[in-house]
């Protein structure tokens, strides 16, 4: 692997962007599934507590990855969008921005649920993220928002995936392939 394959070019994604993309995609799906599953567990399920601890810890790690990815995005060239039509390129740009924003809002709302009483969030026992805001009924409001955002993110992810497949099969361009390996 050449050093240049790590960074983006004006036409292709480098390995760092590609790994960020797929690892974060995996984490997003995992956290969504875990979130839906854990709230259905009952008090006497062995994983009643562990599932929530994992969801919180993994969520904070994903937030760290999100931050690094955004930083990486800013110090790298952005590969040119491949759509033929201007509106298509604009829609793709908007959807990508929305994915980032929804993830950020999910991190914040999730954090506000667990820290609403002033408790810190313990991340895999490695470190603690302290509480900041502690408003009345914060856990309820943040909870409703977190749930709504999660479904909105999933809907946007579905749109994103459908668009990628459309580019691959209908437009027969490199949109999907270039997210699999650099210089494709």
């Amino acid at each position, binding site marked *: 692997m050449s050093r240049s394959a790590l960074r983006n070019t004006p036409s292709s994604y480098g390995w760092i962007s590609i790994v960020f993309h797929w690892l974060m995609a995996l984490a997003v799906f995992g956290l969504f599934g875990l979130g839906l599953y854990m709230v259905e567990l*009952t*008090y*006497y399920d062995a994983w009643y507590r562990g599932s929530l601890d994992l969801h919180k810890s993994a969520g904070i790690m994903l937030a760290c990855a999100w931050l690094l990815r955004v930083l990486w995005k800013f110090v790298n060239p952005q590969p040119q969008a491949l759509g033929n039509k201007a509106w298509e390129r604009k829609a793709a740009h908007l959807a990508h921005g929305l994915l980032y924003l929804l993830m950020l809002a999910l991190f914040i709302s999730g954090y506000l*649920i*667990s820290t*609403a*009483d002033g*408790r810190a969030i313990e991340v895999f026992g490695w470190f603690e993220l302290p509480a900041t805001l502690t408003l009345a009924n914060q*856990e*309820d409001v943040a909870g409703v928002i977190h749930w709504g955002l999660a479904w909105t993110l999933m809907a946007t992810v579905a749109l994103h995936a459908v668009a990628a497949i459309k580019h691959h099969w209908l437009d027969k361009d490199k949109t999907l392939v270039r997210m699999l390996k650099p210089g494709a």
Partner: protein
Amino acid sequence: MKKLMLAAGLSAALLMPSLSQAATYQIDTQGAHAFIQFKIQHLGYSWLLGRFNTFDGQFEYDAKAPEKSAIEVTIETASLDSNHAERDKHLKGSDFLNVSKFPQSTFKSTGFKSTGAGEGILSGDFTLHGVTKAISFPVTMIGEGKDPWGGYRAGFEGKTTLKLSDYGIDYNLGPASTTVEIGLFIEGVRQ
């Protein structure tokens, strides 16, 4: 001087009838000299304590006519506080109190039976989780008298144990945790 004495006598006479009937007390939630707490077993190994931070109410009380005592309390169920946000969220959700559907819990007394000086059995209708049941429980007077700021106060305590399933709450918390003890500690300011 004569005039003043007359005025004093007249006001005393006017005050007389009001002394023979129960006085109304506003529960001092503003100064937070009133608490509604709950206590439930955790796994059968220890107690979990919590409280409702927002409620309101008043009571009627006269030491000379205790049978006229009456009380009305309205609890905002969303103010539940067990000092743990994640647990509070769960307790306020549909598995337990379902506070968005049942935002208030109320107690309206229907009778009071004196069992001795400063104590008795209070009966009334208690509504929780949309279910209303007639309950009775013992209450005790803690004390009454003037406060240092020009008011008059009286305080009581009472507690009762409720079966959660009676109020349509059937989430499995284990065999030791099917009942919850509610404790009422109230101070009222005479109006």
